[in-house]
Every structure is written in structure tokens, then in C-alpha cells.
């Protein structure tokens, strides 16, 4: 197992020399205990993330896709240490952060920020935009001079497309798209190296969605940001990401450059997922669709062997017993499937 990761890492370094990883997750697991009865005894575990390896390169957008319950949000939050990892290692900027104590994570929080899905519940309704943006600066002791701080806040607001004179307004005075801009400004004000964006546009209207995506794109160029972009909309992920990882039931199914993944998906789950996406023109309607049978198994009791074997159209005997390992099937395209062994 461990050897395999090393091989995977080495190969990536060989292919893209000079481009180092900013965030690495190795064999990362996050299990949530299931407690039942009056004594609240732990009777099982929801294996939300069950051993994933992801390496995000500096300056790229890494898209993490999958359906609800696949563990993509948990993976993002664990990478930020918002959740305690159950097992495995997280490396950020060359430093192992998986076992660090909360107070030692202080500097990490400045460099790794998060944008949330819901622009309505992720902002405090009793705080003005100005005070919301000032708080992270105060906490981290930056821009101590009040005028400088104000200047910084207005600069960031202007940068994300908010009127800088709105510092004294409350969240309810803004529309959904503007609120998401406040969330982006809040992440940006600390000048982070990396932003984890968890479904940043899925609550927005179509015409607003493209504004926010373009903004995130511009900010990346301007501030040399790295994104971990978590989303379920495959068209949005394709547009936004450089490389994409597909997750299913706590495991990585496939990791590849976006064009390779969409032109030639190798994992049967990726194939099914992509074939289910509605086309953007009615003339493309008639096509083969791979329909998955059955329901998504519970992550508290995942299937043996390959977790996808209960719904896989190409299932073999070996899939029921042995967990497939990630291997590079085509250059830079990693697949966890026995079909390619």
C-alpha cells in the first residue's frame, strides 16, 4: 500500500518537474462514529473518507467531484483540519499538518481559506460586511492601524466586485450572488495560498453563477491561488478545473487532466457519471446512456472489495474481494479499477 503511494508520487514528479505539490493527502481516512442507545455507545463507523490519495499542485485548480454522500466535502474539510483525520497524512506546503495541535494550526488557517456553498447561512446576519472582513485581520494581528485596515477591506471588496462603500451594510441587504462575493472577500482578505471552495456556485442562479466563476478565475491569476474546487455539477467542474478527481463512497475512482477525463473516462463509474450529464444542446440528446442500477450503498456498511462492484456493469469476481489500487493507466490518468490490471 505504502509503496504504491510512493510510486504514484514519484511518477507525478517525473512528469511535471518543477511543479511542486502544495497539498497532499495520503491514505487519508475520516470515519464518523455512529452512536446509539442511552449510553451513546459507538456501534459502528460511517466511513465518509476511506483512504484517499490526492496531490494538489501549486497554482492549479483541482476539481473534486462525486454525488451526494461520496465524501468530497468531508475530504475538503479534513484537509483543512476542520475535522480530525482518523488515519493518514496531510501535507501542506511541505509540512505535515495531520497531527498538529489546534494552536499550532493558527498560521495554517491564514494560508488555507474556505468558501462555503450557502451564501445565506455562512454569513453572520448581525455583523456588517466591514466587521466580518475586519475580524480575520484582527485575529491574525494584520493591518493593526485602523485606517490601513479599512483601506485593505475596501480594496478587497472592490476586487471581488462589491461596492467599497457598502462596508456598513448587513448580509440581508445583498443578493445571493453578492453574498457569495462577501464570502470570497472574507477568504481573500488574509491573502491565502490556497482556497478550498465547497460548492461555491451551486446555490446561485445561472446568470450569477458565471459571474462568480469568472471572478474566481481572475483571482487565481492575480494572486497565484491554488483551488481545491468541490462540486457536483460536472459541467462547472470541467470548466473550472485543471485536473479532476472522481470520488465514490469515500474512495477515489479516477484522477486525470480534465480533457483526458471527459474525452476518455476509464473507470466505469466515471463513464456512468459523465453519460448521465444532460447535454447542452437538444441535438446531442440521442446517445448511449449508462444507467446505474441499484442505490448508493451506505458508507456505514460499504461493500467488500471495490466499493462500486454492486452497481458496476463490468463487475468481475475479483472486484468483490480485493480493493483495487490507484495506478497510472495512461500518462497522468490514474484509475482504481481491476479492469486495467
Amino acid at each position, binding site marked *: 500500500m505504502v509503496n504504491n503511494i510512493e510510486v504514484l508520487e514519484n511518477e507525478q514528479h517525473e512528469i511535471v518537474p518543477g511543479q511542486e505539490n502544495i497539498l497532499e493527502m495520503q491514505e487519508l481516512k475520516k470515519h464518523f462514529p455512529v452512536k446509539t442507545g442511552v449510553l451513546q455507545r459507538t456501534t459502528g463507523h460511517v466511513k465518509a473518507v476511506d483512504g484517499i490519495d490526492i496531490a494538489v499542485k501549486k497554482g492549479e485548480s483541482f476539481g473534486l467531484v462525486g454525488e451526494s454522500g461520496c465524501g468530497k466535502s468531508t475530504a475538503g474539510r479534513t484537509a483543512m483540519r476542520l475535522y480530525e483525520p482518523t488515519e493518514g497524512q496531510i501535507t501542506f506546503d511541505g509540512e505535515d499538518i495531520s497531527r498538529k495541535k489546534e494552536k499550532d494550526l493558527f498560521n495554517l488557517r491564514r494560508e488555507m481559506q474556505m468558501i462555503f456553498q450557502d451564501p445565506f447561512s455562512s454569513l453572520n446576519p448581525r455583523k456588517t460586511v466591514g466587521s466580518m472582513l475586519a475580524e480575520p485581520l484582527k485575529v491574525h494581528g494584520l493591518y493593526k492601524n485602523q485606517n490601513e485596515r479599512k483601506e485593505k477591506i475596501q480594496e478587497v471588496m472592490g476586487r471581488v466586485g462589491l461596492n467599497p462603500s457598502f462596508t456598513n451594510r448587513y448580509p440581508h441587504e445583498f443578493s445571493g450572488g453578492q453574498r457569495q462575493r462577501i464570502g470570497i472577500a472574507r477568504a481573500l482578505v488574509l491573502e491565502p495560498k490556497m482556497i478550498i471552495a465547497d460548492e461555491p456556485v451551486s446555490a446561485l442562479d445561472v446568470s450569477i453563477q458565471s459571474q462568480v466563476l469568472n471572478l474566481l478565475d481572475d483571482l487565481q491569476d492575480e494572486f497565484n491561488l491554488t483551488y481545491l474546487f468541490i462540486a457536483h455539477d460536472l459541467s462547472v467542474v*470541467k470548466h473550472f478545473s485543471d485536473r479532476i478527481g472522481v470520488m465514490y463512497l469515500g474512495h477515489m475512482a479516477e484522477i486525470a487532466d480534465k480533457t483526458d477525463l471527459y474525452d476518455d473516462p476509464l473507470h466505469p463509474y466515471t463513464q456512468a457519471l459523465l453519460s448521465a450529464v444532460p447535454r447542452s444542446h437538444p441535438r446531442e440528446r440521442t446517445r448511449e446512456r449508462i444507467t446505474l442500477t441499484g442505490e448508493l450503498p451506505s458508507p456505514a456498511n460499504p461493500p467488500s472489495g471495490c466499493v462500486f462492484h454492486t452497481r458496476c456493469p463490468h463487475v468481475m469476481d475479483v472486484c468483490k474481494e480485493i480493493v483495487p489500487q490507484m495506478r497510472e493507466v495512461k500518462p497522468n490518468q490514474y484509475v482504481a479499477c481491476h479492469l486495467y490490471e
Partner: protein
Amino acid sequence: MNGETVIDIRHLKTSFFSKKTELPVVDDVSFSVHKGETLAIVGESGSGKSMTALSIMRLVPTPNGEIVDGEIYFNDRDLLKQKEKEMFKVRGNEISMIFQEPMTSLNPVYTIGDQIREQLTYHQDITRREAHQIGIEMLQTVGFSRAKEIMGEYPHRLSGGMRQRVMIAMALSNNPQLLIADEPTTALDVTVQAQILELMQKLSKEYDSAIILITHDLGVVAELAERVVVMYGGQVVEEAPIDELFDDPLHPYSEGLLNSIPKIEGTQDRLDSIPGTVPTPDNLPVGCNFVTRCPYAMELCQQEEPRLMDKDSSRKVRCFLHEEGIATDGQQHRSS
């Protein structure tokens, strides 16, 4: 396509009243749907698409909401003139509706079987046992292999996709002539969405029902609809056959909407976007509702409200650019 008209909506206007001010949320909406046809209503939040559906069902929230004007002819009968008692016979029987939230539209304390049987025995003169049999058949039609067991299950035991399939089975169990589906797949994952869309397609062919599909997702529209009505700020801004809308949108809003979605085929460096925000019913601009965000806005657009007019036999558009006798090369300005 030219089958008989099932529903014909004319100049519908629905308003909300707060402190004596009238806020029209549906404003002069007209369209019709034929037998066996799927018509999509596309729009963003606040466009009035869901309120149009609720108006057809006469389910506009009271006491603040009210249908102020217009006619809704369902098989030559004006639904707006029917008594509430008559509407009981229409709802769930001749016209059925599927809602967005499969989590909240089933009653959690009754089994699936109870809920299917109830609406069958209410509308048809059949026994409980017969209703049970029909219920099982309907569940099989929507793709349940263990239909008998599902009849005895409570809603919380089912996943979102299964609940939405139950809702569709219930909506279709009385063979409605018109099915209104309000964002039927928005809460569902993409693989489940594909199943539900396929199912709706199959059923509209089988039962020859008319479908009004309400959605914000142009991908879903491209998959399912034959004709599209685009709504903005409570009004219909364009009506067109599906291929023509995607190939050559007439209204600047339709054009902006189509250009702002990322396409799964190919790659684009940058998305087009519509500047500004979606207006709410209480801050609509003077003149054309879209004037503040329109890249082609002319002076006239800020003064007068354009009418919905026929472009040709199958297309309608509400925009001065397409009205004859009005110069289209007028002064262009962008506002944000």
C-alpha cells in the same frame, strides 16, 4: 405537435399584496400546451415560473397572493371560474403536480401504500384492494423492482431518487391529462436525474400526457422539452421550439442565459455572463424588465414596456429589437 390543446393560458396575472401595494409576480403570461407535448418554462429565481404553475393549480398562497386577471382554459373550461370544490376533482386527477422537494412532499407518518391508495380511491370509484393493485403496478412502471414491499414502507426509508419516483407514480396514477413538474430533478444527483428524465419521457409517450416542465437548468430542458417558454421578471420574454431557441435565441436574456452555462462538450476559456443581479418583483425597472442588464438596451427600452409579439408562426419574443419599424442600430450602452 399540432395535437389538441390541453391547456391554454391567456394574460395570466398573479400578484402579492403587502400593505396595499401590489407586486405582480406573474404578469401577462400566455402560452398553451398540446396533448403529448413537453413544454419547458425556464427562468431564474423570482422569474415567476413556479407561481405560474401554482396559479394553474389554483394553489397561490393566501391571503397575500391572488390571481388578479386572465383565463386558464383547461379543455375549454376556465379553471379560474371553477369553485374550490370543483378544483378538488381537477387536482391530482386531471392535472397533477410534482414538486421539487421529494423530502417534504410525502407525509412521513403514512406508508407509501396509504398515500397512493388514498388519492386513487378519492378520484376513482374503486375498492381499496383494486387501488392497492393499481398502486403496485404504478410503482413497477416507475422502476421499482420490489413494488409490493415499497407499498408498506415509510418515506424516510427511501432515498431522494426513490421518493421522487414515488411522487411521479402518484402523480400519474390517475392518468392526468396534464403533468406539472416543478424542478423535479433539482434536488437529485445527476445519475438519478438521468433515470427520472428518462422515466418522464417514457411516460409522456405512453400516456400521451402533456407536461409542463419548470426548471432553471437548461441541460434538463435540452434533454426533455419540445418547446420552451423563457420567463424573466414575471413575464414571458420568449417562446420557441427547442432547437430554434438553442440555435438562435431572439431575446437578449435568452442569449445571455445560454452563453453563461459551461458546456460539457468542448472547453471555453471564459464564460459570458449577464451583468447585474436578478431583479425582485418590488424593484423592477421602468420600461423593459431586462433593460438594466441588457447589452443592447436602447433609449426606448427605458421608457416603454415591449409587448410579447409573434415573430413567426412558432416563435414569440418580447423585445423592441425584433419589433418592426424600430431601429436596431440605435445607441448601445452597457450598464452594470
